[in-house]
């Protein structure tokens, strides 16, 4: 089996772009990725792509060129981007193709995602009585986690403070201003213990990545950034997911724990080998839980890590160097690929003001979302 390399990356800035729909943001990202790779659209042999709310990805061939390629649409909730990448990597590993693309894009309306109970197998009363809100789930989940692990609510504020600090240094981020801890902690509550600075917002954006076999990547002559592994997992029994009218008394593991374990095994590495990590931070609590679920620190050590600055850009394990979802917002289809984009930039050493020092060699991403899916990648230069 061939190693898979990421030979090009493109991004449409996240946030709000009036007058440009989600699909066109996807096309923008693809063109940037092609230019970054130094190839033409005609060189792309296949594509996997998806969006949650901006249409079928394959229709972008009408803008990019009718070259007749295989273009498969991916619809996998919050793991859409991760799954597209996963599928693209498999197509190259199998030897069937030499070079292809994974693309994700989206454009969501303002405000929290609206959801229909029936789509989740729930009765109408669940929505009518006021339970059909993702924000409640995040609040209730991290409330328990903080309680079990003796973590203060200020831990959440520290995550947000870091996200905005990093976002201020990131061209593709949406929130580009720092916010101090005191301001964060005094902001209006949304769903306790999470306040308005601790949630990401639905947003817009797009990312395209060009993948190639090792042989093809060498021909292209750029930095060799290997996709060591790309793993997607669904939830085990006893996990705690969104829109659950009941959860089991007997608690179980998480999709992220499964994905992380498999990814480290496949890559022949451990958490201690990772130089930079992008972890799902739908809200500040998610980053805290994911630091431990991915194996980077024991449950309960997160507050100490944050106070000591260990996850800052110049820390022992920089986390969410572009400000994550908190600073970039969350266009569902593009979000997981943004993490990989950021890692490609970091491994190339071209991240400018937010560059992780010390010439990072290994980079980790983890995306998590409804209805209990998690996707992990590990890159190595």
């Amino acid at each position, binding site marked *: 089996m061939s190693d898979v390399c990421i030979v090009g990356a493109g991004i449409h800035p996240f946030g709000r772009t009036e007058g440009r729909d989600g699909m066109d943001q996807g096309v923008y990202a693809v063109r940037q990725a092609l230019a970054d790779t130094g190839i033409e659209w005609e060189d792309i042999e296949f594509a996997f792509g998806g969006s949650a709310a901006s249409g079928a990805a394959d229709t972008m061939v009408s803008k990019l060129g009718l070259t007749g390629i295989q273009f498969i649409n991916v619809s996998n909730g919050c793991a859409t981007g991760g799954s597209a990448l996963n599928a693209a990597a498999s197509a190259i590993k199998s030897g069937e193709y030499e070079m292809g693309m994974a693309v994700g894009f989206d454009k969501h309306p303002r405000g929290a995602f609206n959801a229909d109970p029936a789509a989740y197998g729930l009765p109408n009363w669940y929505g009518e009585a006021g339970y*059909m809100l993702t924000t*409640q789930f995040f609040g209730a989940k991290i409330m328990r986690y903080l309680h079990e692990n003796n973590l203060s609510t200020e831990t959440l504020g520290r995550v947000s403070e870091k996200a905005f600090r990093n976002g201020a240094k990131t061209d593709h981020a949406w929130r580009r201003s720092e916010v101090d801890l005191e301001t964060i902690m005094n902001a209006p509550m949304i769903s306790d213990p999470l306040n308005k600075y601790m949630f990401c917002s639905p947003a817009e954006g797009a990312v395209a990545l060009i993948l190639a076999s090792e042989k093809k990547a060498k021909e292209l002559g750029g930095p060799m950034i290997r996709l060591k592994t790309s793993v997607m997992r669904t939830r085990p029994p006893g996990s705690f997911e969104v829109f659950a009218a009941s959860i089991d008394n007997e608690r179980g593991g998480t999709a992220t724990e499964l994905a992380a374990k498999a990814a480290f095994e496949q890559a022949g590495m451990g958490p201690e080998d990772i130089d930079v990590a992008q972890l799902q931070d739908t809200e500040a609590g998610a980053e805290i839980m994911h630091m431990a679920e991915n194996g980077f620190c024991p449950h309960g050590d997160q507050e100490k890590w944050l106070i000591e600055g260990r996850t800052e850009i110049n820390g022992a394990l920089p986390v969410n160097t572009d400000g994550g979802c908190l600073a970039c917002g969350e266009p569902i289809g593009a979000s997981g690929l943004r993490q990989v984009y950021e890692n490609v930039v970091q491994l190339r050493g071209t991240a400018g003001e937010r560059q992780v020092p010390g010439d990072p060699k290994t980079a980790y991403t983890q995306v998590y979302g409804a209805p209990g899916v998690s996707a992990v990648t590990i890159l190595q230069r």
Partner: protein
Amino acid sequence: MGAQPIADNLFTDENMTALVGARNKQTGHIFFPLPLTPNDDIEPIALATRGTVWTYTVQRFPPKTPYAGPADPMNFKPYVVAYVSLPGQTMVESRLTGLEPEDVKIGMEVELTAIPLDPDAPADEQVMIHAFQPV
């Protein structure tokens, strides 16, 4: 008419004395509520009416549709949403009532009650939802 529960199959009876849960006859797994579509493996059971708060959050802003309760931003009253652990059964998502958000404690004992979705609605038009209150 009088006050009515928000849905059939939510409570065991018209006095709203217990919630209806679902039990898988093969595995014994208990969950809530009853599935929308009937299934030969699933039987209804009455859930325990006392439990403990496992976790909670507070709904601080008025929800959008499909929320059917009072959602006027000027008068919106935040409500507590908890998971209540019923021993040997499951944890049920439920509002808490009879206490302020700042007085909720994980581990506190609570019991089932029913509350109007809109306390300001006329008494004979009230729609009742499940909630737990401190013991």
